[in-house]
């Protein structure tokens, strides 16, 4: 309520001060239900924080206000996601979308809604390598790195610990398969052996068959490319109970506070990594998040802020909220050269852009877009000694 009041007051003053501003609507298309439902609230709050910051500055397109339109993509059900995103594009007339969240759903909504309607989509968390080469008419960007890169990092981390035979279990979707394959390729290329690379389905109750198969294939560790709210947890529980594996390698889908809460003491020798970053931008973002009442360290929250900021800064740079115009400015504001902009400095960035100066958005995650518009990526390396999640470094 307080937020709403503030927004209305801000809106009212702006309307009085700068009469020419418009209402810019941005979609937030995340899986508020489904396999990643525990991650999405903080991501959405973070995206909305960037919107409020821009609205309050009154510097976007002559004092335009930014209104978020949340929509549930369910993460797993591509048809539901397409319908939902179609609705915010046609009915709510959003001018850009922060999302989708999961790779499969993002591919579907981009191909069937984003591209046909010419809407810019910036995903904070869709990491499938398939999105790199997708036909997107320059409309799609992401603030998280492709899993092709994460697979390499994960393979290096695993080999560095002297683990050279592993079994891989992945969730049966674009994210799981993409990451598992890129890991297996990198791991074998560097001399490791993958004893089994098999899928598991989410939403099942019983995973004893999968665990039995993985145990029989064997290995020094189990690489678990799954979701922490779904099959990933089932396989993990089964493996621990039956003593099949005691060391696990977790990619981003598994890294969450829930993992530590449910399995904390059993993960002594396990490790993992997730796209994240360190530095001034990250610290600033964490402060902002704390003030807004959520955990800035939670998975993909920083990426969500950055995705939103990129859309809005690109609009300011283009001087238009029309996606077909501002889409060409996204890479420009992200990569510079120009004045570096950190989280909480969006007003400064907007002001510079209004004055015709160039900026280089750094944001919470050190955004630098490569290739067809995705971040190169820094990864946070995590260990679970002592029953807590500990960041031991970055690469």
């Amino acid at each position, binding site marked *: 309520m307080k937020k709403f009041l503030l927004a209305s007051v801000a809106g009212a003053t702006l309307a009085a001060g700068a009469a020419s501003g418009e209402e810019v609507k941005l979609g937030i298309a995340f899986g508020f239900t489904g396999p990643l439902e525990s991650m999405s609230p903080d991501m959405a709050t973070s995206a909305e924080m960037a919107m409020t910051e821009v609205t309050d500055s009154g510097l976007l397109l002559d004092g335009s206000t930014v209104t978020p339109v949340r929509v549930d993509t369910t993460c797993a059900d591509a048809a539901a996601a397409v319908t939902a995103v179609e609705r915010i594009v046609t009915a709510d007339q959003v001018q850009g979308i922060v999302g989708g969240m999961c790779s499969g759903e993002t591919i579907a909504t981009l191909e069937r809604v984003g591209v046909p309607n010419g809407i810019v989509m910036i995903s904070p968390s869709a990491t499938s390598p398939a999105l790199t080469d997708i036909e997107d008419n320059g409309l799609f960007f992401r603030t998280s790195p492709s899993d092709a890169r994460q697979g390499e990092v994960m393979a290096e981390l695993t080999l560095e610990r002297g683990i050279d035979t592993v079994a891989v279990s992945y969730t049966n979707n674009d994210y799981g398969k993409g990451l598992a394959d890129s890991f297996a390729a990198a791991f074998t290329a560097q001399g490791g052996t993958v004893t089994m690379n098999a899928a598991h389905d989410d939403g*099942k109750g019983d995973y004893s068959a999968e665990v*039995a198969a993985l145990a029989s294939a064997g290995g020094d560790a189990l690489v678990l490319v799954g979701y922490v709210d779904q099959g990933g947890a089932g396989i993990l529980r089964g493996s621990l109970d039956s003593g099949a594996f005691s060391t696990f390698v977790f990619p981003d889908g598994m890294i969450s506070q829930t993992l530590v809460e449910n399995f904390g003491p059993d993960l002594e020798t396990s490790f993992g990594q997730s796209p994240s970053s360190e530095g001034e931008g990250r610290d600033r973002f964490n402060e902002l998040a704390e003030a807004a009442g959520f955990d800035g360290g939670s998975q993909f929250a920083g990426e969500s802020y950055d995705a939103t900021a990129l859309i809005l800064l690109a609009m300011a740079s283009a001087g238009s909220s029309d996606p077909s115009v501002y889409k060409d400015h996204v890479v420009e504001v992200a990569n510079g050269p120009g004045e570096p902009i950190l989280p909480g400095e969006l007003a400064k960035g907007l002001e510079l852009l209004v004055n015709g100066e160039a900026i280089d958005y750094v944001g919470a995650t050190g955004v630098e877009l490569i290739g067809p518009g995705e971040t190169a990526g820094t990864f946070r390396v995590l260990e679970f000694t002592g029953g807590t999640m500990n960041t031991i470094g970055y690469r």
Partner: protein
Amino acid sequence: MDILNALVTLLNFVVIPAAAYGAQLALGALGVTLIYGILRFSNFAHGDTMAFGTAICILLVWALQAAGIGIAPLPTALLALPAAIALTALLMVATDRAVYRFYRRQRSAPIIMVMASVGVMFMMNGLTRLLIGVNEIRFDDGARFVVSVAEFRAWTGLSEGLALRQSQVITLVVTALACWALFWFLNRTRSGKAMRAYSDNEDLALLSGIDPDRVVRITWIIAAALVTTAGVLYGLDKSFRAFNYFQILLPIFAAAIVGGLGNPLGAVAGGFIVAFSEVAVTYPWRKIAGYLLPDWQPAGLLQLLSTEYKFAVSFVILIVVLLFRPTGLFRGKSF
């Protein structure tokens, strides 16, 4: 030593998990088969009623835990189970009054009853989620293992470990008790005989003075006991998640049909057949082969089917049974 290792591996990864899973399916299938036998329709609301019963049980467990009452090292859920069964039975009898009785009086075709049960399924589905939410809930307090892998290795000195979870033992014991009680009830008591008579020939049963309302009521109450028990055991063994109970409906029906719908003995056998085939057919035998035949090093995993196809296994069995023995392995009612 190697033979022992092979045996322990087989027990740990195939026999024990499949037996526990089979027992849970058997209890679910018993409920399905009972309703089919006596009320003559396939109750699609079964899975979600399991979820509802379990949700009630979890709420009671929380209340008991808050009051500091427990039966450690056994899970508190066992203590809460009878009350949860009573509440679920109340709901099921009320559902029958509100929905199924109307169609029974109309003498509607079974397919209409089935469709009505699909409606009930969605209602139940929503009710459970309103009651307890969509998140994963673990309520297995008490000791987790009877034998843990590390303990087993220390005792026996074998390189392979064996884990026996408390929930698995409880599942098997409770299922055995429930089956024994059900068969005793059906075969030895007046009400049980009345139910069987009603199931065999409704008109004849009515002529001999059996009160149909009473039979129906008892059926729902027993079904409630079976679904709640199955749901709670499943939740104890895995974890509670409303959505999973919808998913388990398919293997439960497969089990009931393979065994022969309407035949309680068939339901139990069907539960174990489905569970063992899901685990055993997709199990890679390489490790066990390695112990038994040390000189032979197979290149592959000796896996018949990849684990993604485990559901296909139960459906293949289902199709084969329906083709060659439409009444199921144990002579139930045909469709």
